Protein backbone atom coordinates (compact mmCIF):
# COMPACT_ATOMS: atom_id res chain seq x y z
CA UNK A 1 0.00 0.00 0.00
CA UNK A 2 2.83 2.32 0.64
CA UNK A 3 4.32 4.14 -2.21
CA UNK A 4 7.60 5.89 -2.18
CA UNK A 5 7.90 9.06 -4.10
CA UNK A 6 10.31 8.20 -6.84
CA UNK A 7 12.30 11.37 -6.98
CA UNK A 8 12.89 14.65 -5.34
CA UNK A 9 12.09 17.64 -7.38
CA UNK A 10 15.37 19.09 -8.58
CA UNK A 11 16.54 22.06 -6.63
CA UNK A 12 17.72 24.76 -8.93
CA UNK A 13 20.36 27.07 -7.62
CA UNK A 14 23.74 26.73 -6.09
CA UNK A 15 23.13 26.38 -2.39
CA UNK A 16 21.33 23.39 -1.00
CA UNK A 17 20.52 23.68 2.66
CA UNK A 18 21.99 20.85 4.70
CA UNK A 19 18.59 20.02 6.13
CA UNK A 20 17.34 19.06 2.69
CA UNK A 21 20.10 16.56 2.15
CA UNK A 22 19.27 14.93 5.44
CA UNK A 23 15.57 14.85 4.78
CA UNK A 24 14.18 11.39 4.43
CA UNK A 25 12.24 10.55 1.33
CA UNK A 26 8.58 10.96 2.01
CA UNK A 27 6.71 7.70 1.97
CA UNK A 28 3.02 7.57 2.53
CA UNK A 29 -0.04 5.47 2.10
CA UNK A 30 -3.24 7.43 2.12
CA UNK A 31 -2.09 9.92 4.67
CA UNK A 32 1.39 11.31 4.43
CA UNK A 33 3.57 9.43 6.89
CA UNK A 34 4.31 11.05 10.18
CA UNK A 35 7.72 12.69 10.13
CA UNK A 36 7.60 13.53 6.43
CA UNK A 37 9.18 16.88 5.61
CA UNK A 38 7.24 19.04 3.21
CA UNK A 39 9.59 21.42 1.44
CA UNK A 40 8.56 24.23 -0.83
CA UNK A 41 10.89 26.25 -3.02
CA UNK A 42 9.82 28.65 -5.74
CA UNK A 43 12.15 29.73 -8.51
CA UNK A 44 11.98 32.73 -10.75
CA UNK A 45 13.37 33.56 -14.13
CA UNK A 46 13.62 37.13 -15.36
CA UNK A 47 15.64 39.39 -17.57
CA UNK A 48 17.40 42.22 -15.79
CA UNK A 49 18.86 43.61 -18.98
CA UNK A 50 21.98 41.49 -18.85
CA UNK A 51 20.24 38.30 -19.87
CA UNK A 52 17.97 35.70 -18.40
CA UNK A 53 18.60 34.95 -14.75
CA UNK A 54 17.25 32.31 -12.44
CA UNK A 55 16.92 32.61 -8.69
CA UNK A 56 15.44 30.42 -5.99
CA UNK A 57 13.40 31.46 -3.05
CA UNK A 58 14.33 30.18 0.35
CA UNK A 59 13.00 26.73 1.05
CA UNK A 60 10.29 26.46 3.66
CA UNK A 61 10.12 23.14 5.44
CA UNK A 62 7.33 21.81 7.59
CA UNK A 63 7.15 18.42 9.16
CA UNK A 64 4.05 16.25 9.20
CA UNK A 65 3.07 15.21 12.69
CA UNK A 66 1.68 11.89 13.74
CA UNK A 67 -2.05 11.53 13.55
CA UNK A 68 -3.56 9.06 16.01
CA UNK A 69 -6.61 7.34 14.61
CA UNK A 70 -8.08 3.86 14.82
CA UNK A 71 -11.17 2.01 13.73
CA UNK A 72 -12.65 -1.18 15.14
CA UNK A 73 -15.20 -3.23 13.24
CA UNK A 74 -16.91 -6.51 13.90
CA UNK A 75 -16.08 -9.16 11.35
CA UNK A 76 -19.05 -11.30 12.31
CA UNK A 77 -21.71 -10.97 9.67
CA UNK A 78 -24.46 -11.15 12.27
CA UNK A 79 -25.05 -12.37 15.79
CA UNK A 80 -22.94 -15.40 16.54
CA UNK A 81 -25.04 -18.42 17.52
CA UNK A 82 -23.82 -19.60 20.88
CA UNK A 83 -24.60 -22.21 23.49
CA UNK A 84 -23.38 -22.32 27.10
CA UNK A 85 -19.61 -22.65 27.00
CA UNK A 86 -16.93 -21.05 24.84
CA UNK A 87 -17.69 -18.60 22.08
CA UNK A 88 -15.52 -16.45 19.82
CA UNK A 89 -16.19 -12.96 18.50
CA UNK A 90 -14.07 -11.60 15.68
CA UNK A 91 -13.02 -7.98 15.19
CA UNK A 92 -10.69 -5.98 13.00
CA UNK A 93 -8.48 -3.18 14.29
CA UNK A 94 -7.20 -0.73 11.66
CA UNK A 95 -4.60 1.96 12.28
CA UNK A 96 -6.10 4.83 10.32
CA UNK A 97 -3.42 7.23 11.53
CA UNK A 98 -0.28 8.03 9.62
CA UNK A 99 2.37 6.47 11.80
CA UNK A 100 3.09 3.21 13.59
CA UNK A 101 1.01 2.89 16.73
CA UNK A 102 0.08 0.19 19.23
CA UNK A 103 -3.41 -0.12 20.59
CA UNK A 104 -4.61 -1.30 23.96
CA UNK A 105 -7.66 -3.51 23.73
CA UNK A 106 -10.36 -4.03 26.30
CA UNK A 107 -13.54 -6.03 25.98
CA UNK A 108 -16.61 -5.12 27.99
CA UNK A 109 -19.15 -7.96 28.30
CA UNK A 110 -21.69 -5.89 30.25
CA UNK A 111 -23.45 -3.93 27.56
CA UNK A 112 -26.77 -2.22 28.24
CA UNK A 113 -29.63 -4.28 26.89
CA UNK A 114 -27.92 -7.62 27.31
CA UNK A 115 -30.21 -10.49 28.26
CA UNK A 116 -27.20 -12.05 29.95
CA UNK A 117 -23.53 -11.19 30.27
CA UNK A 118 -20.71 -13.41 29.14
CA UNK A 119 -17.34 -13.69 30.84
CA UNK A 120 -14.44 -12.43 28.73
CA UNK A 121 -11.66 -15.00 29.00
CA UNK A 122 -9.06 -13.63 26.63
CA UNK A 123 -8.28 -11.44 23.68
CA UNK A 124 -6.23 -13.10 20.96
CA UNK A 125 -4.49 -12.00 17.76
CA UNK A 126 -5.11 -13.92 14.55
CA UNK A 127 -1.51 -14.93 13.90
CA UNK A 128 -2.10 -17.16 10.91
CA UNK A 129 -4.43 -14.69 9.25
CA UNK A 130 -7.30 -17.10 8.60
CA UNK A 131 -9.92 -15.13 10.56
CA UNK A 132 -10.62 -18.25 12.63
CA UNK A 133 -9.46 -18.63 16.20
CA UNK A 134 -6.94 -21.45 16.37
CA UNK A 135 -6.01 -22.34 19.95
CA UNK A 136 -2.27 -22.70 20.35
CA UNK A 137 -1.55 -20.85 17.12
CA UNK A 138 -3.25 -17.52 17.62
CA UNK A 139 -1.59 -15.44 20.30
CA UNK A 140 -3.44 -14.71 23.51
CA UNK A 141 -2.59 -11.25 24.78
CA UNK A 142 -1.64 -11.06 28.42
CA UNK A 143 -1.63 -8.26 30.95
CA UNK A 144 -3.05 -5.16 29.43
CA UNK A 145 -4.00 -6.58 26.05
CA UNK A 146 -1.89 -4.48 23.73
CA UNK A 147 -1.21 -5.00 20.06
CA UNK A 148 2.21 -4.69 18.54
CA UNK A 149 2.99 -1.50 16.61
CA UNK A 150 0.68 -1.40 13.65
CA UNK A 151 1.91 0.50 10.62
CA UNK A 152 -0.28 3.21 9.19
CA UNK A 153 -3.19 1.64 7.33
CA UNK A 154 -2.33 -1.82 8.68
CA UNK A 155 -5.03 -3.92 10.25
CA UNK A 156 -5.18 -6.82 12.62
CA UNK A 157 -7.83 -9.46 13.25
CA UNK A 158 -8.59 -9.89 16.92
CA UNK A 159 -10.64 -12.53 18.71
CA UNK A 160 -12.52 -11.99 21.91
CA UNK A 161 -12.92 -15.31 23.67
CA UNK A 162 -15.89 -15.48 26.00
CA UNK A 163 -17.75 -18.02 28.08
CA UNK A 164 -21.52 -18.14 27.81
CA UNK A 165 -22.95 -19.00 31.23
CA UNK A 166 -25.20 -21.95 31.92
CA UNK A 167 -28.86 -21.24 32.34
CA UNK A 168 -29.30 -18.98 29.32
CA UNK A 169 -32.50 -19.41 27.36
CA UNK A 170 -32.92 -19.93 23.68
CA UNK A 171 -33.02 -16.67 21.75
CA UNK A 172 -31.44 -14.56 24.48
CA UNK A 173 -28.92 -12.05 23.22
CA UNK A 174 -25.69 -10.58 24.54
CA UNK A 175 -23.20 -8.06 23.22
CA UNK A 176 -19.52 -7.55 23.89
CA UNK A 177 -17.98 -4.13 23.28
CA UNK A 178 -14.36 -4.15 22.13
CA UNK A 179 -12.47 -0.89 22.65
CA UNK A 180 -9.11 -0.05 21.09
CA UNK A 181 -7.16 2.94 22.36
CA UNK A 182 -3.96 4.37 20.95
CA UNK A 183 -1.19 3.69 23.45
CA UNK A 184 0.27 7.15 22.92
CA UNK A 185 -2.97 8.62 24.13
CA UNK A 186 -6.56 9.43 23.34
CA UNK A 187 -8.75 12.46 23.72
CA UNK A 188 -10.76 15.00 21.84
CA UNK A 189 -9.57 15.53 18.27
CA UNK A 190 -6.65 17.92 18.22
CA UNK A 191 -5.26 16.87 21.58
CA UNK A 192 -1.48 17.03 21.23
CA UNK A 193 1.10 14.79 22.81
CA UNK A 194 4.27 16.80 22.47
CA UNK A 195 7.24 14.89 21.12
CA UNK A 196 5.50 11.53 21.26
CA UNK A 197 5.04 11.08 17.52
CA UNK A 198 7.32 9.52 14.93
CA UNK A 199 10.84 10.97 14.88
CA UNK A 200 10.07 13.20 17.82
CA UNK A 201 7.18 14.91 16.10
CA UNK A 202 4.07 15.65 18.03
CA UNK A 203 1.28 13.13 18.10
CA UNK A 204 -2.15 14.59 17.43
CA UNK A 205 -5.44 12.93 18.21
CA UNK A 206 -7.44 12.60 14.99
CA UNK A 207 -11.15 12.65 14.33
CA UNK A 208 -11.69 9.20 15.85
CA UNK A 209 -10.40 10.44 19.19
CA UNK A 210 -7.63 7.86 18.80
CA UNK A 211 -10.00 5.24 20.09
CA UNK A 212 -12.86 3.28 18.65
CA UNK A 213 -15.12 0.46 19.66
CA UNK A 214 -17.37 -2.07 18.02
CA UNK A 215 -20.05 -4.40 19.23
CA UNK A 216 -19.95 -8.14 18.73
CA UNK A 217 -23.31 -9.81 19.19
CA UNK A 218 -24.33 -13.29 20.24
CA UNK A 219 -27.67 -15.04 20.28
CA UNK A 220 -28.30 -18.23 22.17
CA UNK A 221 -29.26 -21.00 19.82
CA UNK A 222 -30.46 -23.76 22.09
CA UNK A 223 -32.09 -26.68 20.35
CA UNK A 224 -33.94 -29.51 22.02
CA UNK A 225 -35.18 -32.81 20.69
CA UNK A 226 -38.30 -34.45 22.02
CA UNK A 227 -39.12 -37.99 21.03
CA UNK A 228 -42.76 -38.95 21.33
CA UNK A 229 -43.66 -42.57 20.87
CA UNK A 230 -47.11 -44.03 20.40
CA UNK A 231 -48.43 -47.44 19.40
CA UNK A 232 -51.54 -48.88 17.82
CA UNK A 233 -52.34 -52.59 17.84
CA UNK A 234 -54.34 -54.52 15.35
CA UNK A 235 -54.93 -58.18 16.15
CA UNK A 236 -55.72 -60.87 13.61
CA UNK A 237 -59.34 -60.74 14.67
CA UNK A 238 -59.96 -57.14 13.78
CA UNK A 239 -59.53 -55.94 17.35
CA UNK A 240 -56.73 -54.27 19.22
CA UNK A 241 -55.61 -56.99 21.62
CA UNK A 242 -51.91 -57.72 22.05
CA UNK A 243 -52.28 -61.36 21.22
CA UNK A 244 -49.76 -63.48 19.31
CA UNK A 245 -49.82 -62.47 15.70
CA UNK A 246 -51.10 -58.99 16.48
CA UNK A 247 -49.27 -56.14 14.66
CA UNK A 248 -48.11 -53.22 16.74
CA UNK A 249 -47.45 -50.05 14.74
CA UNK A 250 -45.08 -47.71 16.53
CA UNK A 251 -44.90 -44.01 15.66
CA UNK A 252 -41.84 -42.14 16.87
CA UNK A 253 -42.07 -38.39 16.35
CA UNK A 254 -38.85 -36.41 16.70
CA UNK A 255 -39.77 -32.83 17.54
CA UNK A 256 -36.80 -30.46 17.18
CA UNK A 257 -37.46 -27.09 18.81
CA UNK A 258 -35.43 -23.96 19.37
CA UNK A 259 -33.67 -21.47 17.14
CA UNK A 260 -30.67 -23.62 16.25
CA UNK A 261 -30.31 -26.99 14.62
CA UNK A 262 -29.16 -30.37 15.73
CA UNK A 263 -26.58 -32.33 13.79
CA UNK A 264 -26.28 -36.07 13.33
CA UNK A 265 -29.63 -36.82 14.91
CA UNK A 266 -30.03 -40.62 14.89
CA UNK A 267 -33.16 -42.23 16.27
CA UNK A 268 -32.96 -45.88 17.31
CA UNK A 269 -35.65 -48.01 18.88
CA UNK A 270 -35.32 -51.57 20.15
CA UNK A 271 -38.16 -53.95 19.65
CA UNK A 272 -39.96 -54.93 22.85
CA UNK A 273 -39.34 -58.42 24.22
CA UNK A 274 -41.73 -60.92 22.74
CA UNK A 275 -42.04 -59.12 19.43
CA UNK A 276 -40.26 -59.25 16.12
CA UNK A 277 -39.85 -56.68 13.37
CA UNK A 278 -42.24 -56.86 10.44
CA UNK A 279 -39.95 -56.75 7.44
CA UNK A 280 -40.32 -53.75 5.17
CA UNK A 281 -42.46 -51.75 7.56
CA UNK A 282 -39.99 -48.96 8.34
CA UNK A 283 -41.04 -45.53 7.03
CA UNK A 284 -39.97 -41.92 7.47
CA UNK A 285 -42.58 -39.19 7.09
CA UNK A 286 -44.81 -41.68 5.29
CA UNK A 287 -42.15 -42.80 2.83
CA UNK A 288 -40.97 -46.39 3.04
CA UNK A 289 -37.38 -47.11 3.84
CA UNK A 290 -35.58 -50.34 3.11
CA UNK A 291 -34.38 -52.54 5.93
CA UNK A 292 -30.88 -52.62 4.47
CA UNK A 293 -28.07 -50.54 5.88
CA UNK A 294 -26.67 -47.63 3.91
CA UNK A 295 -29.10 -47.26 1.01
CA UNK A 296 -31.32 -44.68 2.71
CA UNK A 297 -31.79 -42.96 6.05
CA UNK A 298 -33.06 -46.05 7.85
CA UNK A 299 -32.31 -49.68 8.51
CA UNK A 300 -33.82 -52.45 10.57
CA UNK A 301 -32.23 -55.59 11.94
CA UNK A 302 -33.41 -58.24 14.35
CA UNK A 303 -33.11 -56.07 17.44
CA UNK A 304 -33.81 -52.44 16.48
CA UNK A 305 -34.60 -49.88 13.86
CA UNK A 306 -32.25 -46.95 13.26
CA UNK A 307 -32.96 -43.79 11.30
CA UNK A 308 -30.29 -41.16 10.60
CA UNK A 309 -32.03 -37.81 10.34
CA UNK A 310 -28.80 -35.87 9.85
CA UNK A 311 -29.09 -32.14 10.53
CA UNK A 312 -32.53 -31.08 11.68
CA UNK A 313 -33.45 -27.44 12.10
CA UNK A 314 -35.44 -26.21 15.06
CA UNK A 315 -39.16 -26.18 14.41
CA UNK A 316 -39.06 -29.42 12.44
CA UNK A 317 -40.82 -32.70 13.21
CA UNK A 318 -39.82 -36.03 11.60
CA UNK A 319 -42.11 -39.02 11.91
CA UNK A 320 -40.76 -42.58 11.94
CA UNK A 321 -43.10 -45.57 11.81
CA UNK A 322 -42.45 -49.31 11.96
CA UNK A 323 -44.34 -52.47 12.83
CA UNK A 324 -43.56 -55.35 15.12
CA UNK A 325 -45.43 -58.62 15.39
CA UNK A 326 -46.32 -60.08 18.76
CA UNK A 327 -44.87 -63.55 19.16
Amino acid sequence: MKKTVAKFLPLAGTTIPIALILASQPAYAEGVSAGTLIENTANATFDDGSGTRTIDSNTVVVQVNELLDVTVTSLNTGPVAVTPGSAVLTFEITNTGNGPEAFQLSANPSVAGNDFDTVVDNIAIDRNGNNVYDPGIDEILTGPATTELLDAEANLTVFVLVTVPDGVADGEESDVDLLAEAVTGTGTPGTTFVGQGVDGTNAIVGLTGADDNAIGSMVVGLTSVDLIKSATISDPFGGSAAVPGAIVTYTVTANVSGSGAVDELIVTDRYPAGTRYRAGSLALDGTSLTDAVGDDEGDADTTQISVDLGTVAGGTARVITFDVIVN
Partner: protein
Amino acid sequence: MLKKYFIPITATLLAISAPAMAAQDSPLVLEGDVHLVRVVTDENGVQTTEMVEPDVIVPGDRLLFTTDYRNIGSDPVNDFVLTNPVPAAVRLAPDADTGLEVSVDGGESWGALATLTVESETGETRAAEHADVTHIRWTLGVVEPGQSGRLEYPAIIR
Protein backbone atom coordinates in the same frame (compact mmCIF):
# COMPACT_ATOMS: atom_id res chain seq x y z
CA MET B 1 36.66 33.87 15.52
CA LEU B 2 35.19 30.91 13.81
CA LYS B 3 31.96 31.53 15.58
CA LYS B 4 30.74 34.27 13.37
CA TYR B 5 30.70 31.96 10.39
CA PHE B 6 28.18 29.62 11.93
CA ILE B 7 24.65 30.04 10.74
CA PRO B 8 22.22 29.23 13.50
CA ILE B 9 19.96 26.35 12.63
CA THR B 10 16.58 26.46 14.27
CA ALA B 11 16.01 23.50 16.48
CA THR B 12 12.92 22.33 14.71
CA LEU B 13 14.28 22.68 11.17
CA LEU B 14 11.18 24.65 10.40
CA ALA B 15 11.09 27.65 8.17
CA ILE B 16 14.73 27.40 7.23
CA SER B 17 15.83 30.55 5.55
CA ALA B 18 18.67 29.99 3.15
CA PRO B 19 18.99 32.86 0.72
CA ALA B 20 20.90 31.77 -2.32
CA MET B 21 24.19 33.48 -3.02
CA ALA B 22 22.97 34.59 -6.41
CA ALA B 23 20.10 36.42 -4.83
CA GLN B 24 22.39 38.88 -3.13
CA ASP B 25 23.16 40.75 -6.26
CA SER B 26 19.84 40.05 -7.85
CA PRO B 27 17.52 42.99 -8.34
CA LEU B 28 14.68 40.64 -7.61
CA VAL B 29 14.32 38.93 -4.23
CA LEU B 30 12.00 36.10 -3.30
CA GLU B 31 10.80 35.23 0.17
CA GLY B 32 8.87 32.05 0.64
CA ASP B 33 6.67 31.22 3.60
CA VAL B 34 4.01 28.76 4.62
CA HIS B 35 1.11 28.95 7.02
CA LEU B 36 -1.46 26.57 8.34
CA VAL B 37 -4.97 27.68 7.44
CA ARG B 38 -7.25 26.98 10.33
CA VAL B 39 -10.98 27.51 10.30
CA VAL B 40 -12.23 28.43 13.73
CA THR B 41 -15.88 28.33 14.69
CA ASP B 42 -16.85 30.57 17.61
CA GLU B 43 -19.70 29.98 20.04
CA ASN B 44 -22.11 31.75 17.68
CA GLY B 45 -21.26 29.39 14.87
CA VAL B 46 -19.43 32.06 12.94
CA GLN B 47 -16.45 30.67 11.08
CA THR B 48 -13.28 32.62 10.71
CA THR B 49 -10.10 31.64 8.97
CA GLU B 50 -6.84 32.01 10.82
CA MET B 51 -3.35 31.84 9.42
CA VAL B 52 -1.11 30.25 12.01
CA GLU B 53 2.42 28.97 12.17
CA PRO B 54 2.51 25.39 10.87
CA ASP B 55 3.96 23.94 14.04
CA VAL B 56 1.51 21.07 14.18
CA ILE B 57 0.28 19.74 10.86
CA VAL B 58 -1.30 16.45 9.93
CA PRO B 59 -2.74 14.92 6.76
CA GLY B 60 -5.81 16.78 5.64
CA ASP B 61 -4.64 20.12 6.94
CA ARG B 62 -4.67 23.10 4.61
CA LEU B 63 -1.45 24.99 4.00
CA LEU B 64 -0.97 28.27 2.21
CA PHE B 65 2.39 28.57 0.44
CA THR B 66 3.37 32.13 -0.35
CA THR B 67 6.21 33.71 -2.25
CA ASP B 68 6.78 37.44 -1.87
CA TYR B 69 8.77 39.11 -4.64
CA ARG B 70 10.25 42.57 -4.73
CA ASN B 71 12.36 44.43 -7.20
CA ILE B 72 15.03 46.03 -5.03
CA GLY B 73 17.00 47.25 -8.00
CA SER B 74 16.79 50.52 -9.81
CA ASP B 75 15.74 49.12 -13.15
CA PRO B 76 12.69 47.17 -14.21
CA VAL B 77 13.07 43.44 -14.75
CA ASN B 78 11.34 41.78 -17.68
CA ASP B 79 9.93 38.37 -18.46
CA PHE B 80 9.44 37.59 -14.80
CA VAL B 81 8.11 34.06 -14.33
CA LEU B 82 7.80 32.41 -10.93
CA THR B 83 7.58 28.64 -10.91
CA ASN B 84 6.69 26.62 -7.83
CA PRO B 85 7.03 22.83 -7.88
CA VAL B 86 4.29 21.41 -5.68
CA PRO B 87 5.75 19.20 -2.93
CA ALA B 88 4.79 15.57 -3.42
CA ALA B 89 3.23 15.34 0.03
CA VAL B 90 0.56 17.91 -0.75
CA ARG B 91 -2.06 18.36 -3.42
CA LEU B 92 -3.38 21.58 -4.80
CA ALA B 93 -6.50 22.53 -2.85
CA PRO B 94 -9.71 21.86 -4.77
CA ASP B 95 -10.82 25.47 -4.38
CA ALA B 96 -7.61 26.93 -5.78
CA ASP B 97 -7.94 29.70 -8.36
CA THR B 98 -9.13 28.01 -11.55
CA GLY B 99 -7.10 30.51 -13.54
CA LEU B 100 -3.79 29.26 -12.13
CA GLU B 101 -1.37 28.13 -14.78
CA VAL B 102 -0.36 24.63 -13.80
CA SER B 103 1.44 21.57 -15.08
CA VAL B 104 0.52 17.96 -14.41
CA ASP B 105 3.57 16.47 -16.11
CA GLY B 106 6.50 17.86 -14.19
CA GLY B 107 6.59 21.20 -15.96
CA GLU B 108 6.60 19.94 -19.55
CA SER B 109 3.28 21.44 -20.54
CA TRP B 110 1.16 24.15 -18.98
CA GLY B 111 -2.36 25.46 -18.85
CA ALA B 112 -5.40 25.94 -16.67
CA LEU B 113 -6.19 22.70 -14.87
CA ALA B 114 -9.49 22.30 -16.72
CA THR B 115 -7.65 22.14 -20.02
CA LEU B 116 -5.18 19.43 -19.02
CA THR B 117 -5.40 15.67 -19.16
CA VAL B 118 -3.32 12.87 -17.74
CA GLU B 119 -2.71 9.40 -19.07
CA SER B 120 -3.29 6.49 -16.76
CA GLU B 121 -1.03 3.47 -16.57
CA THR B 122 -3.41 1.62 -18.85
CA GLY B 123 -3.10 4.30 -21.48
CA GLU B 124 -6.47 5.89 -20.95
CA THR B 125 -6.75 9.63 -20.85
CA ARG B 126 -8.74 11.42 -18.20
CA ALA B 127 -9.23 15.00 -17.09
CA ALA B 128 -6.50 16.22 -14.79
CA GLU B 129 -7.39 16.72 -11.15
CA HIS B 130 -6.01 18.99 -8.47
CA ALA B 131 -4.04 16.08 -7.03
CA ASP B 132 -2.24 15.68 -10.37
CA VAL B 133 -0.72 19.16 -10.34
CA THR B 134 3.08 19.02 -10.15
CA HIS B 135 3.96 22.68 -10.80
CA ILE B 136 2.35 26.08 -10.65
CA ARG B 137 3.69 29.16 -12.36
CA TRP B 138 2.89 32.81 -12.59
CA THR B 139 3.91 34.84 -15.63
CA LEU B 140 4.10 38.46 -14.57
CA GLY B 141 6.26 40.07 -17.21
CA VAL B 142 7.59 43.40 -16.02
CA VAL B 143 8.33 44.20 -12.39
CA GLU B 144 9.10 47.86 -11.86
CA PRO B 145 11.70 49.06 -9.33
CA GLY B 146 10.21 48.99 -5.84
CA GLN B 147 7.29 46.93 -7.02
CA SER B 148 6.41 43.93 -4.91
CA GLY B 149 3.72 41.35 -4.67
CA ARG B 150 2.73 38.01 -3.26
CA LEU B 151 2.01 34.81 -5.15
CA GLU B 152 0.32 32.00 -3.28
CA TYR B 153 -1.35 28.68 -3.62
CA PRO B 154 -3.41 26.64 -1.15
CA ALA B 155 -2.59 22.99 -0.67
CA ILE B 156 -3.95 20.07 1.31
CA ILE B 157 -1.58 17.65 3.00
CA ARG B 158 -2.15 14.27 1.40
